[in-house]
């Protein structure tokens, strides 16, 4: 017979961890997406040579494991800048830049996938560069980039498990605390996985819904 010492208050504790995961993810994905759009557009507008410093900067965030970024950022802010900052703030800043570095590439790919002939048609109607971006490129590139962006958002949500290294108690950390106390690792990881699934599922479905609507 299956039995567990998991109590209702433990589940509430896990739910609080899940809330933290959602909060860190939402803030980071929102900030990272805004930055990613700015960086992605800048990268295309600046041209190869002028964009080089930006590309280098973004490559750093894409190439170094997130765990190392979090530890180093935490040490840098605390020891070099000597700032009193919460782990939550550091987690959000690092995850935002991490998201932005990937998002910039998604945005760039989306914009480049809009046929230049379509943009030419827009400009030949007297639209300015900005009007072309706003009314033609943005909607078309969004449709193209959406699946990749959903993938990125889900990825960041799962990667946010790493922010425990800067003392943020999110879902996985909460689970580990309970595992230490209850000694039921497999069952607790199953519950934890179910929580992650419940967070991911609506986002994935929402993406599917938008894709369907736009494909009309």
């Amino acid at each position: 017979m299956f039995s567990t010492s998991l109590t209702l208050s433990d589940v509430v504790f896990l739910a609080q961890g899940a809330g933290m995961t959602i909060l860190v993810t939402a803030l980071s994905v929102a900030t990272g997406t805004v930055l990613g759009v700015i960086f992605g557009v800048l990268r295309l507008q600046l041209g190869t040579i002028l964009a080089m410093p930006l590309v280098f900067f973004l490559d750093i965030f894409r190439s170094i494991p997130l765990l190392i970024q979090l530890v180093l950022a935490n040490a840098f802010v605390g020891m070099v800048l000597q700032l009193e900052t919460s782990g939550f703030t550091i987690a959000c800043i690092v995850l935002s830049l991490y998201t932005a570095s990937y998002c910039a590439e998604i945005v760039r790919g989306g914009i480049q996938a809009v046929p230049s002939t379509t943009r030419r048609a827009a400009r030949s109607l007297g639209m300015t560069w900005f009007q072309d971006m706003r009314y033609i490129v943005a909607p078309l590139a969004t449709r193209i980039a959406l699946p990749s962006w959903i993938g990125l958002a889900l990825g960041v949500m799962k990667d946010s498990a790493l922010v425990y290294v800067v003392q943020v108690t999110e879902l996985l950390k909460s689970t580990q605390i309970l595992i230490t106390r209850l000694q039921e690792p497999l069952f607790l990881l199953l519950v934890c996985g179910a929580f992650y699934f419940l967070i991911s599922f609506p986002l994935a479905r929402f993406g599917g819904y938008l894709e369907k609507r736009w494909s009309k």
Partner: protein
Amino acid sequence: MIEIQSLHKSFGPLEVLKGIDLTVNKGEVVTIIGGSGSGKSTLLTCINGLEPIASGKVIVDGIEVHAKSTNLNTLRQKIGIVFQQWNAFPHLTVLENVTLAPRKVLGLSKAEAEAIGEKQLSHVGLGAKLSTYPTMLSGGQQQRMAIARALAMSPDYMLFDEVTSALDPQLVGEVLETLKMLAEEGMTMICVTHEMAFARDVSHRVAYFHRGVMAEIGAPEQIFGDPQHEETRKFLASVR
């Protein structure tokens, strides 16, 4: 009036226009014929400033297109252009395709723009397709939509760049009929085309381009009946 004076244009080391002189008067229909790579399509994109030029001048109603001080966005409002690939905006309905520029560029209200859009779309025979998305239309219908989209800006000049070349043969007729109708209404038009019958029937003047040079220009009867240039004769013999 469109005045083109000793226009030179290069893509890298390749000189595609080698000194073109051409004046097109209000109400005139000029068609440009010639082989691939003769520079005829490039000339059109130079006229509305989509392409920079190496030297020479393009002057539209007294405004020098490639002068630094020229606001191309304003200038393009009076020069409509339709391309070989119709370039529909796929995320907008047929009516929205046509009303977008009048609303955003000319600043018309939605109702005003829609009135113009509906009028232009009915004019090209798409009055029943207003809320359809372009992907549901045939190539010929999309091309007529592109024509209506350009016309909705009330341009003074229309440039047509091989607008029937990408169409299935049975769809060419409907687009050419639309062009003919515009010509009869007195629109000033420059048409790059491979449709010789259209060039002969509709144009006031026909120009033959060969390797970046305007080899010959004249009335259609003269170009098709008594071509003066050796290359024109060869070209016409090859397309007949």
